[in-house]
């Protein structure tokens, strides 16, 4: 739906927190007292007392535990599996191989029709006769306790023959590299080229052309709660219930129904508390299907909780890119063109069901995104490797595209001797130029780059910082300032998956019910992963209905209880789910007013709702508490006129249909100090100015951004899945895969520009990923700004002391 123009002002700049100024909401929300407020989450007392309910906290009668024997090598042919010793171990219920499970679970091939030419091979819950990455499940041991299952696992004897493997994305397409799936012909999963035309001309007439090669390490999400589920199949009722730590319960319901040939109505997916997801828990993993299959075969509940070591080789990875980038500009500092050549290495299979082609596709779509140049050329190769499969992880291509774009922009600034902030001001799309289309063809509804850059300049007191930097350089202290301007794709419509044939809902729904007590219960298809989704839904409901937040209860994460929807991903919870909640709340308000009019024998238009009571629209005099209205409506309908039925439960849905995506924008800045003798980097300070449209809860939005920034910093400085030449992960533990910890992280200052989207009444865009999108670019630019007087640069993430020492010439 499209809300009338009158709801909106444009580019109302935020003052400092807690209440950014935004376009006022329309009646009846014009005096909203919850939306826009920094209100603590109402439902986290239990988490703060360790009384949440994560999957591993649940115990069901007759529950068994499954552990997996996983391939210890990158690529092998399974020659034999000896199970009898394991079967004889105490507590063991069953030992299965891939063929056992394949009898009841269909294989899948993860492709999307709108990613032209993408290909993959059939994949099964467990390897049949060939394992294609270190960590692929091969044998499942089921026992009464986890310890017994692990005891028995040691007695499973698998013999295999190594197969030659493809482990280096740079050589994956060479003729002498083994083809992982011969039937596919080569190791190319997906490729794409984009050419606006005029690129060669632009580079020809440019005064400055800069080239650089950018490398990005493989990351993984490391959710503190590992992937886990309990599958409970009841042979009597044919009902499958899966307690899942997951982001998209309806998607999993659909997949389980289809892969196991069960009626959709017989599959129920329940997501209680989720211990972090970040995209790691929005995919359908082989061991998910294996656990369900085993529950069906054993006719009892089966719990799978990945241990930390298997998480590192079985959770999806992301972000391994090698990109050659070029940029053309005039001596006046006008950017004329970008060109990139991107190679990215995925796993041996495209990941189900979202595919491993999306990330690279995003890099192509987003590179150069904030700028007004017209010429752009991009080439993408997504290649299969015998490494852990990759897929969408927080930021999905944004951190890569942003770091490349902003790195090239800084190189131009340096070559022109122009201030990098000034160069950005001259080249970002003007705030009054929307709606607009980016060079890559992306449709941009309404952004505020100029306003964000202006705000950043004052927020960080840029002039003072430059002065300090100069003064310290004179003393041999090397500090750097780095910027990253960004756009973030949020509120996706069907363009993301639906049009490609993936059965992932672009629409979400909310059902709002007035309880007899006067409380309001809202069931929403978008779940809670810690972002505060349920808190903002309460805020929206309170304002939409006219009730205190304490009277609102939100129910999420149960396919049997909530409307159908897509879930939590692509920063869509607030924008899509929030709008559905708003519409359901407003509809409930209308229906409550109808009932009130009937009870009070007044025209509903003279009534309004406030603080859980029906009031006189003009005087505000309280006339009828919700509790009384509820009592009459539910228990004394006999007192109501014949033919009138109170409808105190309503459902509304929302899908964003105006654009393929609703983009947000922002700018980040990083201030670092580089120790020129050791190559160690100290993060001094980080700033972000973000425009995510209407800010529903500034505190929660800021914490989303801070958490996302630190995740981005992890990639810039610390995180990388390191493989040896045989395709074996050599740092697959929490001690060696370095996630950011409190000691090294900077304080992060955040400010907002609020430009609500017109594609919804709420006007909210997403805020979950922009932090991760911009942080790496800002930090790497800051490091290179510090290194510039030393004639050194590092464009390979993570930026380690080793790389800096090399760049400085301290070591060969």
């Amino acid at each position, binding site marked *: 739906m499209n809300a009338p123009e009158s709801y909106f002002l444009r580019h109302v700049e935020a003052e400092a927190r807690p209440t950014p100024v935004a376009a006022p909401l329309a009646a009846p929300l014009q005096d909203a007292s919850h939306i826009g407020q920094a209100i603590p989450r109402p439902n986290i007392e239990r988490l703060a007392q360790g009384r949440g309910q994560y999957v591993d906290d649940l115990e069901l009668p007759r529950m068994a535990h499954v552990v997996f024997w996983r391939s210890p090598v990158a690529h092998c042919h399974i020659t034999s599996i000896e199970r009898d010793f394991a079967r004889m171990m105490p507590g063991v219920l069953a030992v299965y191989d891939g063929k056992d499970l394949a009898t009841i679970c269909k294989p899948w091939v993860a492709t999307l029709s709108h990613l032209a030419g993408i290909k993959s091979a059939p994949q099964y819950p467990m390897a049949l006769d060939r394992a294609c990455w270190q960590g692929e499940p091969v044998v499942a041991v089921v026992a009464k306790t*986890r*310890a017994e299952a*692990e*005891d028995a696992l*040691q007695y499973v004897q698998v013999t295999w023959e190594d197969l030659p493997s493809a482990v280096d994305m740079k050589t994956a397409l060479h003729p002498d590299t083994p083809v992982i799936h011969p039937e596919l012909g080569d190791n190319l999963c997906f490729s794409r080229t984009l050419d606006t035309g005029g690129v060669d001309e632009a580079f020809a007439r440019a005064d400055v052309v800069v080239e650089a090669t950018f490398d990005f390490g493989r990351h993984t999400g490391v959710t503190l709660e590992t992937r886990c589920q309990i599958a409970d199949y009841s042979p009597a009722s044919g009902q499958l219930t899966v307690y899942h730590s997951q982001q998209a319960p309806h998607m999993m319901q659909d997949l389980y129904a289809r892969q196991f040939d069960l009626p959709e109505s017989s599959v129920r997916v329940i997501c209680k508390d989720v211990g972090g997801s970040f995209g790691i828990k929005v995919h359908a993993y082989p061991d998910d299907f294996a656990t369900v299959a085993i529950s069906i075969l054993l006719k009892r509940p089966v719990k799978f909780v990945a*241990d*930390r*070591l298997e998480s590192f080789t079985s959770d999806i990875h992301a972000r391994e890119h090698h990109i050659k980038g070029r940029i053309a500009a005039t001596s006046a500092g006008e950017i004329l063109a970008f060109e990139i050549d991107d190679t990215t290495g995925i796993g041996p299979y495209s990941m189900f069901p979202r595919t491993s082609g999306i990330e690279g596709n995003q890099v192509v779509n987003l590179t150069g995104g904030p700028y007004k140049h017209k010429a752009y050329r991009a080439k993408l190769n997504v290649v299969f490797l015998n490494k852990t499969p990759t897929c969408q992880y927080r930021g999905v291509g944004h951190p890569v595209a942003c770091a490349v774009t902003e790195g090239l922009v800084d190189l131009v600034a340096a070559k022109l001797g122009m201030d990098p902030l000034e160069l950005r001001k001259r080249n970002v799309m003007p705030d009054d130029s929307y709606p607009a289309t980016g060079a890559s063809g992306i449709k941009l509804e309404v952004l505020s780059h100029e306003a964000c850059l202006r705000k950043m300049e004052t927020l960080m007191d840029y002039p003072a910082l430059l002065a300090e930097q100069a003064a310290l350089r004179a003393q041999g202290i090397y500090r750097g300032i780095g910027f990253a301007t960004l756009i973030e794709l949020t509120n996706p419509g069907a363009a993301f998956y639906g049009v490609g044939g993936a059965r992932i809902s672009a629409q979400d729904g909310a059902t709002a019910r007035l309880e007899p007590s006067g409380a309001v219960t809202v069931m929403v298809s978008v779940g809670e992963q810690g972002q505060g989704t349920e808190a903002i839904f309460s805020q929206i409901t309170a304002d939409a209905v006219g009730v205190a937040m304490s009277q609102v209860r939100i129910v999420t994460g149960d396919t049997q209880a909530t409307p159908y929807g897509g879930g939590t991903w692509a920063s869509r919870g607030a924008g899509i789910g929030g709008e559905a909640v708003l519409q359901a709340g407003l509809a409930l308000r209308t229906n409550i007013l109808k009932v009130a009019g009937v009870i009070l024998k007044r025209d509903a238009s003279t009534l309004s709702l406030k603080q859980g009571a029906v009031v006189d629209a003009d005087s505000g005099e309280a006339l009828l508490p919700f509790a009384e209205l509820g009592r009459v409506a539910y228990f004394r309908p006999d007192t109501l006129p014949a033919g009138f039925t109170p409808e105190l439960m309503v459902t509304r849905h929302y899908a964003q249909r105006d654009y393929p995506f609703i983009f947000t924008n922002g700018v980040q800045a990083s201030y670092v100090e580089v120790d020129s*003798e*050791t*190559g*160690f980097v100290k993060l001094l300070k980080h700033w972000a100015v973000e425009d995510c449209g209407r800010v529903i809860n500034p505190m929660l939005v800021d914490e989303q951004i801070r958490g996302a920034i630190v995740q981005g910093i992890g990639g810039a400085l*610390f995180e990388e899945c*390191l493989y040896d030449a045989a395709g074996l992960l*050599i*740092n697959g533990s929490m*001690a*060696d895969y*370095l996630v*950011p*910890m409190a*000691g*090294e992280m900077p304080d992060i200052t955040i400010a907002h520009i609020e430009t609500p989207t017109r594609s919804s009444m709420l006007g909210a865009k997403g805020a979950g990923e922009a932090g991760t999108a911009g942080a790496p670019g800002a930090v790497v630019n800051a490091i290179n700004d510090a290194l510039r007087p030393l004639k050194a640069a590092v464009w390979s993430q993570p930026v*380690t*002391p*080793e790389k800096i*020492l090399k760049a400085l010439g*301290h*070591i*060969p």
Partner: protein
Amino acid sequence: MKAPAFSYLRPRQLHEVLKLLAEHGDEARLLAGGQTLLATLNMRLSEPALLIDMQAVSELKGLSIAGQTLRIGAMVTHTEIETSDLVAQHAPLLTAAASHIAHRAIRNMGTFGGSIAYGDPAAEWPACLLALSGVIVVRSLRGERRIAADDFFTGLYTTDLAPDEVIVACEIPVAQANQKMSFTELARRHGDYAVVGLAATATMLGNKMSNVRLAWIGVGSTPMRSPQAEQALNDQPLNAQSVAQAVEVLRSEIAPLPDLTHSEAAKRQLAGVLLKRALTSWMSTVENA
């Protein structure tokens, strides 16, 4: 990740520990703080039949001064050392190093003796003991041995400790007024194992250095000293030239083992920087003296 099955005993007397150890040999494993052993067991990288928990053995506990010696019981925890006034006064190097050891929850359980027994080349205590000319006191049914730290660390995770021997304590000469001490390490994240670390001590006679001991963390396959660099400093005045000279000698002397993200060359560079910074930090205090 669940540990394999084993038995567990918690003797109260040291001689019971020694008897059990002699009796069960390599099938038994000593449990001091357990901060290394239990992770290893959770990962099933070891399947002992018996754990001998030493927490109840009072002979292995306590910090004390006897004459010119600081005695650290094997079961003294990292936190006890971190917070001990006795240590701060008589072995300030240890106080300086303690906060670098992992994190508080681990320092509350982990023990000095356990750390020395593993001789981890990346750990702080073994290097400190080397720098401080410490002595390791070990006991077995065969009697007691006293081993100089210089002779104790024999290889990667191998020490001079015999299979039937238990570390009961370590002894450290108390700090002298004219003794310089410095502990520095470089780690990617606070509490991580050091990329490179240095525990350095020297005696100052006027502006002249003597008895210089440079003990390195994360450089060799054992906690190790750099005799040539030490030699380059002994009987030298502490000044820019001697420092530069020593750094040069050090970089040609050591051949550091690479780790996952740092090459031999990088570690060589970093070691030189640490030595320079340690010695420079002494200069100011000496000149002022």
